[in-house]
């Protein structure tokens, strides 16, 4: 998410929306949505949990306004208050030509994977996100530099998308986009997410867009829905366009009545700057061919089962993890092949309306650090 360093941008978009509304025909429609989550995380295996994780209590609030301009055009603005202050999570126009072709222009979350479709805290039953998409609640965030592709990933650009209905049972969704892409500093060894959310970098850092695409096949059979998706994104992330990256992912969602089985896998290949003296910069020496390998590989996976016990109570079991292979900077606590696995058991209780109480316990199993336990208690509400 991007910090709104220039609050005027969001305000301007909102004013534009309101001004346009007055001039719009009478058949226009405006929708308002919002959500809130207050989460408290404890790390009982540490005396001071914040030494290896975010501060205990975090709040996320989002407010979204969507204005329809007839049947084919709409505009959306969404503001979020999260760990990074006020941020513009959406500011885009949608133009629908047909079911098979829509355009989205502005600031949005490009289509990648399955979880980002429900990344709002009101839309998932655990307090935190799966590790491949972690954006700050994982233990040892500093050492791991978050997940493979933190969610929600918000960026500026243009997206073409559509859906083709082969029959009443089979639907193919697809999207392609060009966005600013992840950012890193000159001579970087990984993405720097702080650069991606600072307001001045609403403008791309290297004037070369990243491109990506997603396809998802949806099959409906009786009370069962199966969605199978594949995603990809590639580009450069440093100001000089010297350092490239590629991300690929596959996802599966099986819904049987109200039971959900979700599985997702992401892999990112990222080029690191070797610097002028790799021996002083890196922890490990040259590979078998006598040269320093400038790439590292980061993989993430998530398997989750969500089972409703009754109308108010859901139980969630999750197994997710990360693996990083490749050289690391000399100061890194990770090795050349590091991994973390996490086991989560949680429950979500609907209190009233869309207000929920979330409870979860997590066991982290690290290859480079001692195991940790994290406990989450959260209250979530939605409009």
């Amino acid at each position, binding site marked *: 998410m991007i910090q709104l360093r220039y609050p005027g941008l969001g305000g301007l978009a909102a004013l534009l929306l309101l001004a346009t509304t007055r001039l719009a025909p009478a058949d226009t429609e405006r929708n308002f949505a919002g959500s809130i989550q207050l989460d408290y995380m404890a790390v009982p295996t540490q005396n001071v949990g914040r*030494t290896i994780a975010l501060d205990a209590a975090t709040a996320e609030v989002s407010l979204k306004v969507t204005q329809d301009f007839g049947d084919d055009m709409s505009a959306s603005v969404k503001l979020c208050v999260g760990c990074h202050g006020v941020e513009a999570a959406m500011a885009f126009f949608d133009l629908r030509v047909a079911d098979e072709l829509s355009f989205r222009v502005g600031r949005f979350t490009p289509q990648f994977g399955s979880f980002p479709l429900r990344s709002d805290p009101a839309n998932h039953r655990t307090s935190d996100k799966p590790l491949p998409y972690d954006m700050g609640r994982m233990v040892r965030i*500093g*050492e791991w*530099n978050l997940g493979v592709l933190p969610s929600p990933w918000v960026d500026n650009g243009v997206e073409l998308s559509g859906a083709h209905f*082969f*029959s009443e*049972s*089979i639907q193919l969704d697809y999207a392609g986009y060009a966005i600013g892409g992840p950012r*890193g*500093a*000159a*001579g*970087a060894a990984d993405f*720097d997410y*702080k650069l991606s959310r600072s307001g001045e970098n609403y403008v791309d850092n290297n004037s070369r867009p990243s491109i990506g695409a997603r396809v998802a*096949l949806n*099959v409906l*059979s*009786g*009370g*069962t*829905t*199966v969605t*199978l998706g594949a995603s990809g994104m590639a580009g450069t992330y440093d100001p000089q366009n010297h350092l490239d990256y590629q991300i*690929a992912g*596959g996802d*599966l969602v099986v819904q*049987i009545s109200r039971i959900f*089985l979700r*599985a997702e*896998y992401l*892999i990112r*290949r990222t080029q690191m700057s070797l*610097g*002028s*003296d790799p*021996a*002083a910069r*890196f*922890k*490990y*020496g*040259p*590979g*078998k061919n006598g040269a*320093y*390998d400038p*790439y590292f*590989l980061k*993989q993430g996976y998530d398997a989750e089962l969500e089972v409703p016990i009754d109308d108010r109570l859901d139980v969630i079991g999750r197994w997710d993890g990360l693996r990083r*292979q*490749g*050289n690391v*900077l*000399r*100061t*890194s*606590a990770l090795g*050349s*092949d590091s991994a973390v696995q996490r086991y989560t058991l949680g429950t979500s209780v609907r209190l009233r309306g869309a207000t929920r109480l979330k409870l979860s316990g997590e066991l982290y199993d690290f290859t480079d650090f001692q195991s940790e336990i994290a406990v989450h208690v959260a209250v979530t509400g939605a409009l």
Partner: protein
Amino acid sequence: MRVLRGVAAVDRAPGARAGRRATTPRLRSVTAGCALAAAAVLAAAAVLAAAGCALAPDVGPLLPSACSDADGQPGSTVSFAAQIRPILDRPMAGCSCHLPAAGEPGTATQQSGLSLGSYASLREGGTNSGPQIVIAGQPCASILYQKVSDAPPFGSRMPLSGPPFLTSDELQLLHDWIAEGAANN
């Protein structure tokens, strides 16, 4: 459409066998969905696992540490006020991310909770660094030195506007000041 035919075939098979109780449409749909999902997951996992193995980086053995905590010039003492303060105070391409705003003393911006406005605030460290920002006598373990060197332990190398980064002489001054005890001299 091929997928639809596949689903139908799986649906028909159990109930078509003589002597077996016909499954309900709901159960058949669940079976079909799970079979389709399992096949897809297995195929995708095989492809991705193969890709992951093929892309595994080629990494050599662990290197000995190139950083030494020894003072580079034991015969002389680095002054915080005269030699380190000017390095910290120098505007980096207009950014003073950890310094008081110009003309407004005491209103440090403190990006990441780190203020370099005074010796005391420097030693307090920031959100990520804390007291590890400067460990007297151990420049190689001090986050201040690590963050301006070629191997920052987290985030980007400082100053963020670099290059240019600190010169080798400036890095050596910072190193030696910490190696000598990081005094407020």
